[in-house]
């Protein structure tokens, strides 16, 4: 009996010992080999891994006025199962959101656990809805890019798409600087979704986007847009553009394109309206190019302001006859009068003396045929064909701005070179930005000396005479000297010919001409007015110049 008991005891002992060993082994396994897995699973229940979004930088004008900023707006969601009186809630929301309550009720009656009612609400509407304290309604904050001046400078600013990526204009070109870098936060949370103070916490802070300051001046921009819009509506023109820049360093003070769009509502914008005509609309510039042709002629010494020719109303070149506008014959005409009268035959005369090689080089030296390098998305370079592809007649047509294309900004940069003493500058729109590392300023960039200072001064006088005595008298600004030149270009049709009675009218000028601080170019597509629409372009220029000079408190240089 005692032996049996002893055997049983031994058996029980062995069983328990074996179980203990197995359990100990299992415990040892979980504590060593599978420790990391267990810890991960335990942490996974309480840890949250969050992205800390980087705040997109603010865009300001040169005086510090906000042009674009990102704020968090409240988005309204609903948990339908928790809303008791759905029709009444839908009615209240409809009133506060200014919407039909039907679609709201549909959402509230959905079988989903969670639905959006409306995203990024106006703050007043969100505050009113929050006061209702309806169980089952809640808010989440979402970033939204806002533009307090609405569609002002829309093309220069660009916009931000739904993914938070900048598109077009400054938003696109400086997206990397404006966007910043998101951070990361790993924390332990309690069941109420609050961070546990003593829990694990790993944080990589977000690097917010830089605040960007533009060279654009809000007041000059407003005046330029107002005048352009008024002219286009009065003239029933298809589209138009205006650009104002400082010829001393190429800083753009205003640039506008019409039709336009609201950067905060691109989803409903007309795609054609989103095209920036200042930098992305190459067209045949027409007679504004005569200034560059004569500048090249004077600089190369083939003509002088007093050089004259007998104007018969046309010029023969390369076996073709090129006529003056309206076929008018001016008789003996000097180079200043070529600009005053905008005589095509005179430009052909200078072009012939220069020859194709020097004319083409001069046109390219003024920046035509290649992008200006402006810090904006979507710039076009225009077309100046290689000299090898020129026909003999192209020397004639190019001398008065046909057979090549240029953007309004290229024309403005070329006139700025004449206005500042002969140096072509790269136009720029961002004056600088401020980030965590401090302030960064854009250094103005001189591309090349195009003509000598003497030639530039001569050209300035000739262009002032064009406004004072020539066809451009509608551009006169009382109290100030103004230099400038009109241009009218025919519009090519799909069959390679020109469209009858439809033009693109341009006026390019600088003011005050004694010491120019502003260059402005106005371009109108298909205006319905006399003198081929150039009067409308000149009146727009004059009105914008008057406001700009008044705002800049520039001392008049004339009585």
């Amino acid at each position: 009996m005692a032996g049996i008991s002893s055997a049983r005891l031994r058996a029980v002992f062995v069983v328990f010992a074996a179980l203990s060993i197995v359990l100990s082994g299992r415990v040892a396994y979980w504590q060593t080999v599978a420790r990391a897995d267990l810890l991960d699973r335990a942490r996974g229940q309480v840890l949250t891994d969050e992205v800390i979004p980087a705040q997109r930088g603010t865009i300001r004008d040169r005086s510090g006025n906000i042009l674009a900023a990102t704020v968090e707006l409240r988005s309204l969601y609903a948990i339908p199962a928790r809303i008791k009186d759905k029709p009444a809630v839908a009615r209240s929301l409809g009133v506060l959101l200014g919407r039909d309550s039907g679609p709201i009720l549909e959402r509230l009656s959905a079988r989903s656990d969670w639905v959006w009612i409306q995203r990024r609400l106006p703050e007043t509407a969100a505050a009113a809805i929050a006061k209702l304290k309806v169980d089952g309604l809640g808010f989440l904050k979402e970033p939204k890019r806002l533009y307090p001046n609405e569609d002002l400078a829309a093309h220069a600013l660009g916009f931000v798409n739904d993914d938070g990526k900048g598109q077009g204009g400054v938003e696109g070109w400086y997206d990397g600087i404006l966007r910043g870098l998101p951070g990361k936060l790993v924390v332990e949370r309690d069941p109420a979704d609050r961070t546990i103070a003593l829990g694990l916490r790993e944080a990589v802070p977000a690097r917010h986007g830089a605040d960007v300051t533009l060279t654009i001046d809000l007041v000059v921009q407003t005046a330029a847009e107002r005048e352009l819009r008024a002219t286009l509506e009065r003239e029933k023109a298809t589209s138009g553009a205006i650009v104002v820049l400082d010829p001393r360093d190429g800083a753009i003070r205003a640039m506008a394109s019409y039709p336009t769009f609201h950067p905060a509502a691109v989803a409903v914008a007309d795609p054609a309206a989103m095209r920036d005509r200042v930098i992305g609309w190459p067209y045949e510039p027409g007679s504004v190019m005569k200034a560059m042709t004569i500048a090249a002629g004077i600089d190369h010494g083939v003509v002088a302001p007093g050089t004259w020719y007998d104007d018969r109303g046309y010029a023969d070149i390369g076996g073709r006859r090129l006529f003056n506008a309206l076929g008018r014959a001016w008789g003996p005409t000097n180079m200043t009068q070529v600009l005053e009268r905008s005589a095509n035959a005179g430009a052909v005369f200078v072009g012939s003396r220069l020859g194709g090689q020097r004319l083409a080089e001069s046109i390219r030296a003024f920046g035509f045929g290649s992008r200006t390098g402006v810090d904006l998305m979507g710039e076009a370079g225009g077309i100046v064909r290689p000299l090898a592809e020129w026909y003999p007649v192209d020397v004639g047509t190019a001398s008065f701005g046909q057979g090549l294309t240029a953007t309004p900004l290229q024309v403005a940069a070329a006139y700025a070179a004449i206005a500042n003493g002969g140096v072509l500058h790269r136009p720029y729109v961002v004056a600088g930005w401020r980030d965590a590392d401090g302030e960064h300023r854009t250094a103005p960039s001189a591309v090349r000396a195009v003509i000598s200072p003497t030639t530039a001064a001569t050209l300035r006088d000739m262009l002032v005479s064009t406004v004072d005595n020539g066809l451009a008298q509608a551009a006169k600004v009382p109290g100030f000297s103004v230099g400038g030149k009109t241009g009218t270009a025919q519009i090519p049709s799909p069959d390679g010919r020109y469209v009858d009675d439809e033009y693109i009218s341009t006026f390019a000028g600088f003011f005050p001409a004694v010491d120019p601080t502003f260059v402005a170019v106005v371009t109108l597509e298909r205006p319905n007015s006399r003198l081929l629409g150039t009067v409308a372009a000149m009146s727009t220029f004059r009105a914008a110049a008057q406001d700009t000079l008044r705002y800049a408190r520039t001392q008049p240089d004339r009585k």
Partner: protein
Amino acid sequence: MISLALTGRRRSVRVPAARRHGAYRRPAARHTRGAQRTATWELGSFLGAAAAITAAFVLALAYLAGSTGVATAGYEAQRLQATRDELRRQNALLELEVAKLDSPARIEAEAKRLGLVRVPFIPVVQAAPLSARR
């Protein structure tokens, strides 16, 4: 024995000096002294254990109080952070509102609504001739 435990004074039960110096020592007295030593050791152990338990309890309480305090402070910090973020958001919205109200286009439209018109020409008085005349 009990009085010993209460007073803890060993001198009160010491054998008189005459006896200590005497050659004879009674077995009963030896037994009593051993019992006394055991009692003293038990008492010491009891007091030590009690003190250790009390200290551990106090430490645990202090740790709990500290943890609770930190957790409460953490929640308060979160609440204050949320308040700060909301105030910053409100501030950004107000800055945008100011920018909207300062917009030259809005001011022009408002001026037009009030019947104001643009001045066609602003005469500028030259300061140099005036000062020369004086």
